[in-house]
């Protein structure tokens, strides 16, 4: 039986080397490109009729749009509207990465810490730059809660600083760990199906249940990633 870890193996499809750097087109890259294609084709095809009264597909596209728009507006507040394309792309990239990864034999790039970390670093750096551009040195007030006694500063400032710097780690580890664990669990439980012979229907029912659970988690984790990015953006735009 294949190891449950094997599904996370990066396999080059088209080897590309630029100088000493290996930037081969891998199974991970394939699913990233697939995500871009699926997102673009889905949204443009859904909106091709531009119907005033939407059909099913168009409704789905509109609901996705409004869901992300509402999430951004509710969590990031005023002035966040110009970051909507980025937040929407982030949501789609994570959501489709999670969902496409659930199809059998697929590769889940959101299970790799380097990918989620890359996204989280972009969010972290972007939010920090926005904060300093908008508030200048005043953005440093982030590290001292408003109304706290000045005496508490030596204690509070390091705590706030650590909590601020840990944002990209919690953001990326949460997503990658959830995806990795879910897929390992599916693989392990599925491994029992053949092994238990006629009683295999028990783990099979378990796999079916876990698959449903994983679909829920795929959507939920994409939402959490987006919502937290929106909240960080809110801090940058409006401070605490």
């Amino acid at each position, binding site marked *: 039986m294949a190891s449950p870890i094997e599904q996370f193996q990066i396999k080059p499809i088209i080897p590309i080397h630029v100088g000493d750097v290996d930037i081969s087109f891998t199974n991970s890259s394939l699913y990233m490109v697939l995500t871009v294609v699926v997102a673009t084709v889905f949204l443009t095809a859904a909106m091709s009729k531009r119907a005033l009264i939407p059909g099913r597909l168009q409704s789905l596209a509109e609901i996705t749009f409004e869901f992300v728009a509402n999430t951004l507006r509710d969590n990031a507040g005023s002035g966040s509207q110009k970051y909507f394309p980025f937040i929407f792309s982030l949501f789609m*990239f994570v959501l489709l990465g999670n969902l496409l990864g659930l199809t059998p034999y697929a590769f889940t790039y959101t299970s790799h810490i380097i990918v989620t970390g890359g*996204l989280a670093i972009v969010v972290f750096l972007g939010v920090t730059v926005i904060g300093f551009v908008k508030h200048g040195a005043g953005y440093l007030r982030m590290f001292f809660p408003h109304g706290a006694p000045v005496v508490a500063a030596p204690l509070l400032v390091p705590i706030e600083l650590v909590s601020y710097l840990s944002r990209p780690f919690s953001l990326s580890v949460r997503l990658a760990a959830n995806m990795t664990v879910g897929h390992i669990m599916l693989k392990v439980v599925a491994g029992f199906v053949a092994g238990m012979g006629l009683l295999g229907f028990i783990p099979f029912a378990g796999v079916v249940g876990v698959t449903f659970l994983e679909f829920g988690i795929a959507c939920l984790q994409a939402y959490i990633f987006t919502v937290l990015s929106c909240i960080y953006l809110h801090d940058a735009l409006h401070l605490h």
Partner: protein
Amino acid sequence: MPHFDVTSFPSQLFWLAASFIALYVLMSKVALPRIGDILAERQRRISDDLDMAERLKAETEAAIATYEKALAEARAAAQAEIARALEANAAEAAARHAEMDAILAAKIADSEARIHAARRQALAEVNGIAADVAAAIVERVADVKADADAVSPVVAAIAKERGL
């Protein structure tokens, strides 16, 4: 675990950047404006329709107000007309009543005058008859031929004395 295979990191980061930038460009330039346009168009249509409904409602209310005002005016005018007609009728009736009263009073007075005249005449004739009767009684009782001219003044005097 393959997750920590550092040799795969450059490729993963490169393709992450490439595909995410591609997704961002496609979303912000192609997909999102279309959806946004449709949603804005729908919102505009809905608010237009609501505005139209609001305007039509206001127009209806204005029409109802005009109608009710006209109705009230017509009712007031009719009431005034009725009152005026009633007043005119009453005045006319009173005039006719007075006229009739006058005519009746004149007729009564006339009739009374005629009755008086007839009575006076009858009384005058009674005196003559009484004189004739007296002369006849005298002739029968005393066997005297009484002169009518002599009897009548006496009868008249007696009648006067009795207040006839």
